[in-house]
Structures are given as structure tokens and as C-alpha cells.
């Protein structure tokens, strides 16, 4: 039963306007009017979405079949799939794909684990619960550009960084985070920003657990660990799926920390940064457009899987 399927039924069952005649499409005048109105309400938004996001994408596809460097304006010609052949064979694409998968995958999973730990800790009564929650969500509200800069120069700097200073207490020598382990610095910032996001969704899940069931488990002598694994974790499955899906969607586009912290060095050149570099530094419009199209194809593959389960979650309303 989908939510959208329930809605049309309401008008059909409306006692005011029962279907009088059995015509082909048993719609009354009032229903038809309602339908027209609904279309009129949706169209402006639909048109805006098509003009702003879909048409430029079609143009990107067109560009991807052209040999076109902005430095040679007269030299624009149609080359079919040459650009795709170039980008798929030059190695930059595959290493960039790997960087994207590693950065997104590790960040999503680590934030999920940290988010779960924090959500479990917050889902208890304790002194300053509200304040702790408020402080914990702040990293997600932080502007990514600001977060990247603060991590780069203030937290992870090799000379004056607070992380190296703290590590000094347990006898670890200063680490040049930004230059030696760039991929780790990116993952650290992203994890820091997305842990609160995961935590909020998971906390909502924990709080929707029926308390009488948990009490029953406790009365029956189940310890907290057993209760967690056999009651809480199954209940939390859909919330974990939701946070992984949304986290992945948001992180697949990640650009800011890479542009600001590493500029794509040391295995951090994600697909969006690679495209940016080819288009706006190399001025290779055709080649960059091909990267764009390939990125979308890959995103669609991920998204189709994600979207299907996402749609299931939304429409079955199992979470309400």
C-alpha cells in the first residue's frame, strides 16, 4: 500500500460525488477538475526542475561527443565516442573512480558506526542530555568549506595542529596529515561532518522503539547486550539503510574538502574534482563532459539500487 495510492481513493469514495455514469474512465466532473488542478499545481515545479537540471544535462551529453578545447575556439568538431575512448583508457578515470569509492565508502561506514555509538549513548536520561545533543549536531551544520579549512590549518596542521599536539601526549611523533596521508584527512573531515547526520537518523530510530517490548525483554531476563542484538538491531535495520543511502547520495558529490585541503593529490581525486580539473583548468570541454556523463551513469547505477529501497521505505511508511 503506497501513500500515493491511498490518496486518489479518497475522492472516489467521497460520498458527495459518487460515479454517476459508467464511462470508460469512471471520473466525475469534479474528479476531472481535481485532476486538472493537481496537474496545474505540479507543472511549475516540474518545469523548473527540467529547465534547471535536465536540459543542461542533455547539453552535457551533446558536448561529450565533441572535440572541443576552449583554447582553440574554431576547432570544435563532432567525434562520436572518441572522448569516451580517451577517458576510459587514460587511467585517470579508473583511479578517480577508486578514490571516490574509497572516500565515500569509508566515510559512510565509519560515520555510521560512530553515529550508532553516539545515538545509543544519547538515548538515555543523563545530565545535560539536550546540551550534548545540541553540541553533537553542530559539525553537520558547519559549512563544509569552513570545516575543511579549520581541519587543514588548525586541527591537522603539522606544526600547530591540535591533533598532533594531543598525539604528542601518547608519544606519537608529529604527522604531516595533509601531505603524507591526504586520503585520511579527507575521510576525517567527512566523518566528522557526517557522524551527526547518521546519529540524528539513528537516534530517531532508537526512540521509535516500543518501550513495552524492551521492558518485556528486560523482565524476561535479557541483558542489555542481548537486547541490543536481538531486539534493537533488527528494529534499526531500516534506519541504518536509510542513513547509508542518504549519506551515500550526499557524499557522492563531495568536492569542497578536496578542493580546499588536497587539490586532488595523493589518491583523493574524486570524479567531481577530476571533471572540474579537466573542464576549468584543462579547458577540455568535450573530455570533461564525457567524465560528467560517466559519473551520472555510475550514480544512476548506485541510485537505482538505492532509490528502489529508498522508495520502499518512503512509500510503505513502515517508519511511521
Amino acid at each position: 500500500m503506497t501513500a500515493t495510492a491511498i490518496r486518489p481513493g479518497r475522492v472516489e469514495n467521497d460520498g458527495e460525488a459518487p460515479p454517476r455514469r459508467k464511462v470508460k474512465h469512471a471520473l466525475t466532473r469534479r474528479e476531472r477538475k481535481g485532476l486538472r488542478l493537481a496537474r496545474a499545481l505540479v507543472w511549475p515545479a516540474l518545469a523548473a526542475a527540467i529547465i534547471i537540471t535536465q536540459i543542461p544535462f542533455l547539453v552535457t551529453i551533446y558536448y561529450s561527443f565533441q572535440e572541443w578545447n576552449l583554447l582553440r575556439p574554431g576547432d570544435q568538431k563532432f567525434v562520436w565516442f572518441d572522448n569516451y575512448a580517451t577517458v576510459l583508457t587514460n587511467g585517470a578515470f579508473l583511479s578517480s573512480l577508486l578514490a571516490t569509492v574509497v572516500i565515500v565508502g569509508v566515510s559512510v561506514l565509519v560515520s555510521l558506526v560512530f553515529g550508532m555509538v553516539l545515538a545509543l549513548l544519547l538515548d538515555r536520561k543523563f545530565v545535560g542530555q539536550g546540551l550534548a545533543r545540541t553540541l553533537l549536531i553542530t559539525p553537520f551544520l558547519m559549512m563544509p568549506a569552513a570545516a575543511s579549512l579549520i581541519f587543514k590549518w588548525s586541527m591537522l596542521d603539522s606544526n600547530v595542529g591540535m591533533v598532533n599536539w594531543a598525539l604528542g601526549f601518547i608519544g606519537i611523533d608529529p604527522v604531516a596529515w595533509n601531505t603524507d596521508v591526504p586520503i585520511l584527512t579527507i575521510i576525517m573531515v567527512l566523518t566528522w561532518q557526517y557522524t551527526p547526520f547518521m546519529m540524528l537518523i539513528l537516534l530517531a530510530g532508537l526512540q521509535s522503539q516500543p518501550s513495552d517490548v524492551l521492558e518485556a525483554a528486560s523482565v524476561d531476563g535479557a541483558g542489555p547486550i542481548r537486547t541490543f542484538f536481538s531486539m534493537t538491531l533488527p528494529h534499526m535495520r531500516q534506519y541504518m539503510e536509510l542513513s547509508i543511502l542518504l549519506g551515500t547520495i550526499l557524499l557522492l558529490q563531495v568536492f569542497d574538502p578536496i578542493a580546499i585541503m588536497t587539490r586532488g593529490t595523493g589518491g583523493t581525486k574524486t570524479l567531481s574534482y577530476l571533471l572540474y580539473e579537466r573542464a576549468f583548468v584543462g579547458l577540455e570541454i568535450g573530455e570533461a563532459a564525457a567524465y560528467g556523463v560517466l559519473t551520472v551513469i555510475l550514480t544512476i547505477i548506485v541510485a537505482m539500487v538505492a532509490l528502489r529501497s529508498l522508495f520502499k521505505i518512503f512509500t510503505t511508511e513502515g517508519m511511521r
Partner: protein
Amino acid sequence: MSTTMLLTTGSRTVRRTRPLRKRAGSVVLTFITWVLTVGMFFPIAWMVFTAFKTEKAAATNPPTFITQLTFENFEAVFDRGFLVYLTNSFTASVVSTLIVMVLAIPAAYGLSVRPLIRSTDALFFFISTKFMPLAAIVIPIYLLLQNMGLLDNISALSILYVGMNLPLAIWMMRSFLSEVPGEIIEAAQVDGANFWTELVRIVMPIVAPGMAAAALICFIFAWNEYFLANLLTSTVARTTPPFLGSFVSGRGQFLAVLSAAATLAVLPVVIAGWIAQKRLVRGLAMGAIK
């Protein structure tokens, strides 16, 4: 674990020791929670503290904890034209959010309350545009704006933010609207109330908190957006995130000024987010959870 094993010799001992152990465990958990909370918040607290230090005090190793506080960094930030960037950010965020809400509320209403054939398809389309990486559409947009002389134009940026936030807003509004009891709307229709009365007088007040949450999230995403702003604006229409980004190439001591600029840049969104945190959860989950 082992202590309880030793103590569980008689049922009376168990009854007496359990609560005590529980309370001790609770204190430990609370302590751990606070340690983690402080750890997570530390970068932000340190940023704000650094913003009030002198450049010299900001760049010491080991770090300076007690120092003379100063406002000179904030003055320096405003001397660099920060107010212009802040105004631009504000314009782009507010204008785009207003347009998004004007488009999204009727659309979500049409998709959830009113009957519409293929409304699932339309919803599917809207959400799928959210999966489109901005990188995939930025090249034609850049070239178009360049040809039209609209690079470095705050209105152009605002329109793009509309496209970026519209799917999210429609999804959130649809989720909030689907909770309006059907009887309320039917009653209004039976009473002969026309459509706009129905929407403005009856439905909107019920979903007002949800609308506020949706608007706030659109505002936050627009305010924090860096990729498009960095590419499509340069001096006149530059917003705060790319301005902050320009600190990257900074030479000499700049940590305190950077912290001051970052503090000012994140302040509006952080405060708004703190105030609306309870509703934010549902918005962030695109209405999938309460």
C-alpha cells in the same frame, strides 16, 4: 562481569547490588558520552577561541590556552569586504529558498493531497534529479552564463540553487502534507471552500512547522554551497564559502583571521540549526522518519 558472578550467591545480594552497579555503569556511560561530545565539538570551540586570539598567540606550539582576547581579527575580516560576501550569501539563500517554497508547496500538495494520475512517476522524477551530480550539469551552465554575461551574478546563482533544493523540498513537504487528516480537507470541500482557501487557511497552518523545517534546510544547503559559487562568481557576487576558500593560498600568519571569518560564516546556520534541531531530523531524512 566477574564481580556480579561473585556476588550472586544469594538472591538478596543480587537485589542489593544490581541498582548500585547500574548506577555506577550509568555514571561511566554519561562520562563517556561527555568525553565524546566535547571531542566532537572541540574543533568548533577551538575555532571560536582562536578567532579572539592575536595571530602570534594563534600559531604557537604548544597551543596557547590563556591569552589576551582581541577583536582585531573580526575587524580585519570586515576590512576584506566580508560584509559584501555575507550579503551575497544571504541574498542567494533567501531568494532561492523563497522560490523553492513557492514552487514546492503547491507541487507537494498536488502530489499528496489532490489526486493525480502518475504521481508516483512525478515523485520519482523529482527525487532522481537530486542524484544528478552538479558536476554533470555545470559545464553548459557555465558556458551559457558566460555567453549571456551572467557570470558573477547573484540572481543566476540563486536560480541554480532553486534547481538544487527543489526536489528535497518537494519530498519533505509531501511527507508533511500526507499527514494532514483527509477528513479536514474533505470537510473544507463539502463546505464549498475553494481551493486556495483550503490550502492557505486550513492546510498551511497544520504543516507550518514542517514548512519551516523544509525552508531552513534549503537555506542551510544554499548558504553552505561551495562548488557552484566558486565557479560561477568572482568578485561582485562572491558568496562566503568561496571567499573562505581563498584563504587557502594565504601566506604568513593567518590562522586567527581565518578562524574569525569561519566563525562569522557558520554562525547564522549553526544558530538556526540549534533552534530548529528537533524538526531538522525529519527534514534531513527527507521526511522518511518522524
